[in-house]
């Protein structure tokens, strides 16, 4: 097994040991899911659809976003920052392993564990209580899983970059809060993008945040198919490439600064 996969595996196992945290995370996400669904039902009372989104679609949207919160961890992730502040980063840099890949492995293991323990059960429970939309074909399931993987890569690329701020400032938590606020607002987590004004919805859709959260859901619900589906996946891939390149540029500068000025 190579070092990357071994890192994914150990991180996955670690995630599984956090039983209490996983369960309470599941309960919280579920509760907010029910809450959001109730609000949507009240909003839709008179109308069959808003901006082309049916109530059934909106409820599925709510369930999926709630199920993806832990997996994408888009709004709260300071793990790398902490290692910079407690000095662990020194030991990590002394390992013969690419720093970016190492953290990607750690995060992929975490995400996988969270998806299995929190994401999937949450959506299953949601499907018991509400009438949700499901992908109709194997192809659609496959496309959804692919876009879900891409979503994680975008989310990681963003979170990694935000955390790198800790290489420059002794308190990057504030920067993190602001940056994660951005991803929260524009990802469509908070509210279906279809309910945004058109220009804002379009902006969010093209941003890395929308590409991470909104696109997989569109694929799942079946709002995009054929050419549109390919286009959506290409938008995701483009963001992955951009973020990975930016991450490496910033990381190299950060490491250079760290090794020149000291920890």
């Amino acid at each position, binding site marked *: 097994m190579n070092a990357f996969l071994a890192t994914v595996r150990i991180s996955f196992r670690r995630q599984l040991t956090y039983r209490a945290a996983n369960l309470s995370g599941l309960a919280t996400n579920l509760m907010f899911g029910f809450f959001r669904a109730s609000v949507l039902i009240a909003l839709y009372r008179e109308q069959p659809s808003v901006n082309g989104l049916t109530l059934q679609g909106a409820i599925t949207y709510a369930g999926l976003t709630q199920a993806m919160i832990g997996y994408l961890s888009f709004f709260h992730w300071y793990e790398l920052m902490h290692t910079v502040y407690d*000095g662990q980063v020194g030991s990590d840099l*002394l390992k013969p*392993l690419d720093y970016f890949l190492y953290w990607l492995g750690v995060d992929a293991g975490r995400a996988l564990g969270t998806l299995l323990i929190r994401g999937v059960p949450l959506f299953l429970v949601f499907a018991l209580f509400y009438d949700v939309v499901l992908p109709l074909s194997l192809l659609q399931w496959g496309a959804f899983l692919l876009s879900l993987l891409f979503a994680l890569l975008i989310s990681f690329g963003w979170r990694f970059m935000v955390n790198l701020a800790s290489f420059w400032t002794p308190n990057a938590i504030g920067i993190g809060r602001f940056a994660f606020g951005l991803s929260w607002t524009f990802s469509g987590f908070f509210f279906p993008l279809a309910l945004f004004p058109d220009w804002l919805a379009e902006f969010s859709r093209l941003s890395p945040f929308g590409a991470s959260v909104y696109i997989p859901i569109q694929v799942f619900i079946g709002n995009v198919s054929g050419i549109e589906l390919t286009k959506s996946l290409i938008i995701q891939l483009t963001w992955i490439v951009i973020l990975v390149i930016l991450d490496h540029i910033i990381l190299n500068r950060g490491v250079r600064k760290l090794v020149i000025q000291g920890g």
Partner: protein
Amino acid sequence: MSSIIHVQDLVKTFKIYHDHKGYLGAIRNLFDRKYDLVHAVDQINFDIHPGELVGYIGPNGAGKSTTIKMLTGLLVPTSGEVRVNGYIPWKERKTYVKHIGAVFGQRTTLWWDLPLSDSLTLLQHIYEIPDPLYKKNLAMFREILELDAFMNTPVRSLSLGQRMRADLCAAMLHDPKLVFLDEPTIGLDVVAKERIREFIQFINRERGTTILLTTHDIADVAKLCERVMIIDHGKIVFDGKLDHLLRTYGGRRFLSVQFAEIYPEPVLENADIIKMEGNNVVYSFMRDTVSASHLIHKLSESYRIADLEVNDQPIEDTIREIYEKQLLYNHNHDKKNPAS
């Protein structure tokens, strides 16, 4: 014999900013920040040969960890030359670190929430250790470090001594030629310290691993290291054998006397009274100024003695005195090449 660590004219200078105070000062800081240049490491030279076990000591802030960071590639020198195992550490860090091991006593490289065995398996993959070698090394370290009792315990539940043994094993699995040990006995009890020292001695003697040991515990150095380097104010102020250091600077001895009666002022030439309680008096004197037998002779001429005892100053106190009085620093800081 070619050296495994070669350090020449090594300098590391930090800019330490001092900010203006108050609100206006905070604004001024944006445009005009004053700084001092601090020479954390100031023109040091040394060579370490394969198989050596060298103690690297010095007071806090003397430049020890700055040196170690430059040797491991975590810090780029301001000027000077470093070659370790043929590599320039900060330029070729990712390839270089395959060949070294490092233990920082204050932190762990192990996965806190998982059994020790999981972390060790991960290291096998990270260092790409071939299966037979991994199994051989692990079996050996399990036995010597007695890891079996807690191999499947989450690292967070280990005692400090157990965790340190685990970290030592983790640093040695890939057969590094050179190991940096930074405070490997910090916070341990006497028994645990002794075990760690025995292990360090084992990997140095039996496996020929070169070791650079930084520590504040002089007993580590006294037990393990033939050669010791002392850094102070960024300069290597001593590099040589420990007993040479002690002979040169540790000349202080103590003469404890119990007199047969109480004397108000039992003064003695060439010796200072450092403690006096009734008829018990402790004198301090320097080995190279006066001999113990001479002092005892002088004492018995003037006073009646019931009992007496002569002691050497403990090593810890000698080193502390060297740090505090900066004996070596003052002695050497005009010379171009420090004592060797």
